[in-house]
């Protein structure tokens, strides 16, 4: 494992752990998802660089398109839940309270 592989793998694990721990705001959970997408983008771009494969460079672009879809949907959920619940704190969204 070279240090660059260690960089994006540990970045992915860090942002996944940050998403799994307790977040105060829904925005920061969305930011963790964005950073997972960022580390996946860098990792997918390292692959054609190391194998000198031109046709694989379209894969991170396609993944960036779908991450844009995810970000747009997440922000729409953020707006909708802020309208219904009054703030974007995640403890408002717990299913265990009535």
């Amino acid at each position, binding site marked *: 494992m070279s240090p660059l592989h260690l960089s994006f793998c540990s970045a992915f694990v*860090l942002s996944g752990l940050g998403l799994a721990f307790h977040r105060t705001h829904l925005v920061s959970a969305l*930011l963790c998802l964005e950073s997972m997408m960022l580390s996946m983008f860098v990792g997918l771009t390292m692959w054609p*660089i190391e194998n000198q494969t031109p046709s694989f460079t*379209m894969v991170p672009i396609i993944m960036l398109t779908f991450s844009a879809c995810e970000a*747009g*949907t997440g922000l729409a959920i953020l*707006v909708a839940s802020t309208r219904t619940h009054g703030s974007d704190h995640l403890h408002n969204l717990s299913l265990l309270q009535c």
Partner: protein
Amino acid sequence: MTYFVFFLGVCFVLGILGVASNPSPYYGVVGLVLASVAGCGWLLSLGVSFVALVLFMVYLGGMLVVFVYSVALAAEPFPEAWGDWRVLGYVVALVVVVLGGLVLGGFVGSWGFGVNTVDSVGMFVVRLDFSGVAMLYSRGVGMFLIAGWGLLLTLFVVLELVRGLSRGAIRAV
């Protein structure tokens, strides 16, 4: 050059750690911008300049929108920066978990400093990332259409989610 790229990788991990350590969303956006700038420089140093440019433009545009949302919806009177004790506790816990995973997984002894790059061989030869991304419009037209259809679907999903409090997908109960 190897150490420069490794330095950018360290900046990338630090930016991601600044996002993941649960500060206020203002500072989280700053950490994500730092990570995207470092990742853009990293890919640019390895030679794929077009993909790095796409990453920089898309991420900074997207982060501008997210920053406006966080200012508008998550405003706090006392935002928590990285110097607070709770955020520092998150930093320590995350670093301990990742380092423990590295030690337990046996990744520590097997270092290597091999870094591959993409070299340009002149202005008359199309480089790897330019030709690969251009191939999205010829060979990869199926995925191109699927991605465009996904973006169109996302438009209607967003419109349906934010339609209103009485009609849309999320309603006030």
